[in-house]
C-alpha cells in the first residue's frame, strides 16, 4: 500500500465531518422519538415473524411490488443501492487509504463478480431513476400529488441518485481507459465507456478519474446527510420500521390497543399531539415515502372526502419536527434548574416544565408553536371522522406504516377528552349504553326473529345442564334490522337442517361495543365488552359462530384483551365447512346460473384474511355459478362505507362510498351481489336502489338457504 497523500488527509477530514454530522442527526431524530409517550407494546416479540417481515416486506420488497410499474422500478433502485453500498464502502476507504481495493482480500473470481455487479447495478439504478424522474415530471401520477407532498424535493433526490450513478459509471470508464488496477475484474460497462476516453492522455484520463471519484464520494456524503432533512429519510428508517411494525403480524392484525382508563393522573386520553402518540407512530412519520399508495386506496379520499391517510402520517412527522426541537431546547434550558423533576416525562405537560421555562422568559413565538397541536392545527376533526377503518391504507403501505392507529388514537382524544364528535353519534352512544344496541331498539325484542323457530337460549340449555356445540352470536343488526333478520333466519335454518346443536343468548346478548371502540369511545366499549365477556364466560362458551364480520373480529380478536378467549368462526367459513363436509342437505339440481359478484367485507378480508371461504361457499351452493370479481377485490376490495362507525354518521361530503362501490360491483355485469356482512348488505342494497339497478343483494346464508333440499326446508321451518 502506498503512503497517505495530502488528498487522503483532506478526505479523511471531510469523511469525519460528514460522519459526525450524520450521527448528530441520527441522535437528534432518535431523541425526538422519545417524546412519543403513548402506550406501546413490546416491539421485540415474536422475532421470527419480525425477521420474516424484514426479509419479505423489507428486503424482498413484497409490498412495493404490488404496484406493477413503480414497484419494480423502486425495487430496482433499492436492490441496486444494497449492492452498490458495498462498492461505496470501498470508495470511501480508498479516500483514506491510498489505493485501497477489495482486490487485495477477495479471490479473483469473486472480485470479478463484484466489479461486474457494481457496473450492472449502477446502470440499472440509473435507468430506473431516469424513468422515475420522467414519471414525476411528465406523467405525474395522481397518487404522488396532494397536500403535504414534497415534489421538488423528490425530483432533487432522484437527480442526486442519478448524479451518483453517472459519476460512478464515468469513474469506471476512466479507470478502464487507464487499465489502472481494474484488470482483474469484469467491466463490460466501464470498458465500453472507457473506449470513449481511449484517445485522452494518461494525465487527462487520471484527472477524469479523480474528478469523478471526488464528485461521487462527496455527492455520496451530501446525499447521506441530506436524507435526514427530507422525505427520503425513509431510506434510513423504513427497514427499521418494517421490523418493528405489527401491521402484518406479530400480534393480532387490526386489533385496537386497549387503553388503561384507570391510570392515575392522566389528563389527556387518546392523542391530541405527538406526546400522546407512541414512538412507533412517530417512527411511522419518519418512514413515510409519500408514495400515496395509502391515499390512492382510501375509500374516503377516493370519493372526495378531506381525509388522506398519507397526510395523517406526513402531518405527524411535520408536527414532530416542529415541536420536538422546541421541547429539546426547553429541556436543555431547564435541565440545571429541574433535574429532579425530570423523568416522569411531560406527556401532558405545560405545568411541570412550563415553570422552568418561565425562568428563561418564554419567547411568545415559541410558546405559540408549542401551544399548537397535531389535532386541529394539522389534522382536523372532519378528516378523522371520515375514516371507515377499512384498513386499505395499512394494507397498501410498502413500509408497514399504521396510519389507522394514529387516526384511532386521535378519535379517542376527541371523544374521551374533548367530547367532540358528530352529533349523530350521541344517540348511538346512548343506545349502546342504555339499550345495548346503537339504535335504541327495545332489548326485549332482541330475539323476536327467533319466535316460533324453537331455538334454545343458553339460559334454557344451562337450566337443563346441557351445552350446545356452538353459540350463534346474532349481533345487533342481525337482531333488529329487518333485512338482516332474514339473514339470521336463513342461517338458523341451515344450522337446523345440518343438525348442528346450537343456541343463542337471546335477551342476554348485547352489543359488544365494537362500534363504540371504532368511534373512539373506549370507555363505553370497555364497559360493554367486559359485560359480554362475563356473560360468555359465565356459560363457559368455547365456540361462537356469527354472520357479522364486526362481531367476528371483535369477539375473536379483541375480547382476549378482556379475558375472553373463544374459537370464533364467521358464518362464511362455517358454511364452507358444513358444505364441504356434506352436512347440509342441498338440492340435487344445478339451479339457476347466476352471475354473482362477491363483495369483500373489510373486517373479513383485510382484517382477518377470510377471502376464499366466502367464494368457496358460493361455488358450493350454486354449482353452476359464474363468479365474477369487481375491479378492486379480495384484500384490495373497496369498503362499503359503513365501517369505523360511519354507519351512524352522515356522509355529506363528496360522492357516497356505497354508490362508488356498488357501481364497481354492477360493472361486473353481475345479476346478484353476494355479501357476508349485514352492514355491507345495507350499504350495497342502498347503492343498488340509488342506482335504480335490479341486481339482488343477498347474503351467503341466503344463497345457501335458497338451495336447501325441499325436505330440509320443510322440517326446518
Amino acid at each position, binding site marked *: 500500500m502506498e503512503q497517505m497523500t495530502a488528498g487522503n488527509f483532506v478526505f479523511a477530514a471531510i469523511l469525519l465531518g460528514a460522519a459526525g454530522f450524520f450521527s448528530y442527526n441520527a441522535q437528534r431524530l432518535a431523541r425526538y422519538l422519545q417524546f412519543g409517550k403513548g402506550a406501546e407494546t413490546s416491539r421485540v416479540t415474536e422475532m421470527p415473524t419480525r425477521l420474516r417481515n424484514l426479509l419479505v416486506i423489507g428486503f424482498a420488497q413484497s409490498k412495493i411490488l404490488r404496484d406493477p410499474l413503480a414497484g419494480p422500478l423502486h425495487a430496482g433502485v433499492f436492490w441496486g443501492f444494497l449492492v452498490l453500498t458495498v462498492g461505496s464502502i470501498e470508495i470511501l476507504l480508498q479516500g483514506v487509504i491510498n489505493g485501497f481495493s477489495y482486490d487485495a482480500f477477495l479471490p479473483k473470481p469473486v472480485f470479478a463478480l463484484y466489479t461486474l455487479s457494481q457496473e450492472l447495478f449502477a446502470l440499472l439504478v440509473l435507468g430506473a431513476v431516469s424513468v422515475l424522474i420522467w414519471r414525476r415530471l411528465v406523467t405525474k401520477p395522481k397518487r404522488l400529488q396532494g397536500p403535504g407532498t414534497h415534489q421538488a424535493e423528490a425530483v432533487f433526490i432522484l437527480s442526486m441518485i442519478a448524479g451518483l450513478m453517472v459519476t460512478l459509471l464515468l469513474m469506471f470508464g476512466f479507470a478502464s481507459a487507464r487499465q489502472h488496477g481494474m484488470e482483474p475484474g469484469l467491466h463490460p460497462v466501464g470498458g465500453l465507456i472507457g473506449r470513449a476516453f481511449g484517445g485522452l492522455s494518461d494525465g487527462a484520463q487520471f484527472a477524469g478519474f479523480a474528478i469523478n471519484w471526488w464528485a461521487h464520494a462527496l455527492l455520496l456524503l451530501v446525499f447521506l446527510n441530506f436524507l435526514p432533512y427530507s422525505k427520503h429519510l425513509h431510506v434510513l428508517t423504513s427497514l427499521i420500521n418494517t421490523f418493528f411494525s405489527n401491521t402484518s403480524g406479530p400480534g393480532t392484525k387490526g386489533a385496537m390497543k386497549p387503553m388503561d382508563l384507570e391510570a392515575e393522573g392522566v389528563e389527556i386520553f387518546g392523542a391530541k399531539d405527538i406526546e400522546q402518540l407512541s414512538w412507533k407512530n412517530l417512527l411511522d412519520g419518519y418512514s413515510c415515502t409519500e408514495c400515496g399508495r395509502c391515499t390512492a386506496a382510501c375509500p374516503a379520499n377516493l370519493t372526495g372526502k378531506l381525509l388522506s391517510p398519507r397526510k395523517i402520517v406526513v402531518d405527524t412527522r411535520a408536527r414532530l419536527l416542529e415541536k420536538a426541537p422546541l421541547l429539546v431546547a426547553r429541556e436543555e434550558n431547564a435541565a440545571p434548574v429541574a433535574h429532579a423533576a425530570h423523568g416522569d416525562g411531560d406527556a401532558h405537560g405545560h405545568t411541570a416544565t412550563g415553570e422552568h421555562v418561565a425562568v428563561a422568559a418564554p419567547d411568545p413565538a415559541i410558546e405559540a408553536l408549542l401551544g399548537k397541536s397535531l389535532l386541529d392545527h394539522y389534522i382536523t376533526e372532519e378528516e378523522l371522522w371520515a375514516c371507515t377503518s377499512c384498513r386499505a391504507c395499512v394494507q397498501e403501505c410498502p413500509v408497514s406504516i399504521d396510519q389507522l392507529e394514529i387516526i384511532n388514537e386521535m378519535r379517542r382524544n376527541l371523544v374521551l377528552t374533548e367530547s367532540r364528535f358528530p352529533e349523530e353519534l350521541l344517540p348511538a352512544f346512548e343506545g349502546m349504553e342504555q339499550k345495548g344496541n346503537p339504535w335504541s331498539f327495545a332489548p326485549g325484542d332482541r330475539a323476536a326473529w327467533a319466535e316460533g323457530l324453537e331455538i334454545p337460549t343458553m339460559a334454557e340449555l344451562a337450566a337443563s345442564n346441557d351445552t350446545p356445540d356452538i353459540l350463534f352470536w346474532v349481533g345487533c343488526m342481525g337482531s333488529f334490522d329487518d*333485512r338482516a333478520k332474514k339473514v339470521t333466519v336463513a342461517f338458523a335454518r341451515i344450522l337446523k337442517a345440518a343438525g348442528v346443536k346450537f343456541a343463542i343468548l337471546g335477551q342476554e346478548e348485547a352489543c359488544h361495543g365494537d362500534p363504540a371502540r371504532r368511534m373512539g369511545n373506549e370507555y363505553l366499549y370497555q364497559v360493554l365488552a367486559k359485560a359480554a365477556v362475563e356473560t360468555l364466560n359465565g356459560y363457559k362458551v368455547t365456540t361462537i359462530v356469527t354472520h357479522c364480520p364486526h362481531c367476528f373480529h371483535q369477539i375473536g380478536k379483541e375480547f382476549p384483551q378482556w379475558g375472553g378467549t373463544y374459537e370464533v368462526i364467521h358464518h362464511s367459513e362455517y358454511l364452507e365447512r358444513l358444505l364441504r363436509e356434506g352436512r347440509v342437505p342441498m338440492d340435487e339440481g344445478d339451479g339457476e346460473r347466476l352471475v354473482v359478484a362477491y363483495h369483500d367485507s373489510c373486517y373479513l378480508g383485510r382484517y382477518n384474511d377470510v377471502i376464499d371461504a366466502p367464494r368457496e361457499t358460493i361455488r358450493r351452493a350454486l354449482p353452476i355459478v359464474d363468479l365474477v370479481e369487481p375491479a378492486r377485490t379480495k384484500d384490495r376490495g373497496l369498503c362499503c362505507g359503513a365501517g369505523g362507525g360511519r354507519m351512524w354518521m352522515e356522509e355529506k361530503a363528496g360522492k357516497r362510498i356505497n354508490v362508488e362501490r356498488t357501481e364497481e360491483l354492477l360493472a361486473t355485469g353481475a345479476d346478484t351481489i353476494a355479501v357476508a356482512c349485514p352492514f355491507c348488505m345495507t350499504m350495497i342494497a342502498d347503492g343498488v336502489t340509488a342506482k335504480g339497478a335490479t341486481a339482488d343483494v343477498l347474503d351467503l346464508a341466503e344463497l345457501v338457504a335458497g338451495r336447501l333440499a325441499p325436505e330440509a326446508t320443510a322440517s326446518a321451518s
Partner: protein
Amino acid sequence: MANFLAVAEARNGELRKVAHEAVTAAKALAGGGDVHAIVFGAPGIAAKAAALGECGASKVFVVEHDAFAMHNPEAASATIAAQVKAGGYRGVILSASAHGKDLAPRVAAKLGVGMAADVTAARMDGDAIVASHPVNTGKVVSTITLSANPAVVSVRPGAFTPAPTGGSATVEALASAADPAASRVKTTGLTQGNTAKLDLGEAPIIVTGGRGLKAAENFKLVEDLADAFGNAAVGATRAVTDDGWRPHSDQIGQTGRLVSPDLYIAVGVSGAIQHLAGMRTSKTIVAINKDKEAPIFKVADYGIVGDAFEVVPKLTEAVKAARANR
C-alpha cells in the same frame, strides 16, 4: 255535594276552549254543588265572562287589570288561592295547559296542599277525589287519590268535552289579591301563532316523505298534507336528503332528528333501521307504501298499501274536511 272554583283561561282578551273544559270538569266534580269561575284579563274581559255560564258556572269572578293582559302568574295565583280560602271551596280546577300547569302548583303551595296534575278523568269518592293521570310517557295510567282539602286539580285539555247546561252566570268584579303591576316575573311579549315553519322537534304531527316519492317535486304532495293538518311539519328520510331533495335538517332518523310526535305519517318510506330508530316512539304511526313487505308496516299502527300519488291527495282532502267540521 261541594262547591268548586274553576280557573277560566283567557288569552288576548278571549276565553280559550280549555276555560269551558275546566268549568265542565268542575261541574262534574261538584255534583249538585255550585261552580264558580275566575278569569283574569285586561279591562274588557268581563264582557266575555258570562259565556262560562253555558257550561255550568253560576258566578264568574272577573279580575281586570292592565297587568293581566298577559300571563301574570304571581298575582293570579295569589288571587286564586285567596279566593279559594275566602269562598270555602272544596277544590279548584285549572287546565293542564301551558298557563294552567304554571299556575296550579303555585296555588297548591300557597294553600299548603298536594295536587293532582293533568288528569284525564276525575270523580268524588267519599271525602277524596279520585283521578286518572297518565304517567311514564303515557305507557302507564295511574289512579290517584287526593285527600287534600281544598283540592287542586289540573285537567288535561280535550279530556272534558264542554257540555252546555243551558245555564247562565252572574259576573262579579274581584280585586287582585296582590298588585299585578308589582309582580317580579313579568311577561313581556306574546307571539301568536307559528307563522314560521314548525320545528320537527315540536310539531305534534309529522308527515315524512321517502324515496317512494320518486322526485323532489313530488314532495308537494307531502307538504299539502301537512298544510291540511295545520300543525304538521314535513320530514324526510336519509335517502331523500342525501339525494338533495330536501335539506339535511329535515332528516328524521338515527343520524338526523329523533322525533316522537302524536301522529307520524310515513309516505313512501320503506323503514330502514336508521329511519325507524328516529321515529319509532311516535304515538301513532301511519304508513302509506306500495310494497306491503316494507318494514315500516311492522311499526305502523295503521297501514295503507297503495300508491302514494293516489292515496295522499285523498287523505289531504279528508283531513281538510275533518278539520272544517270541528
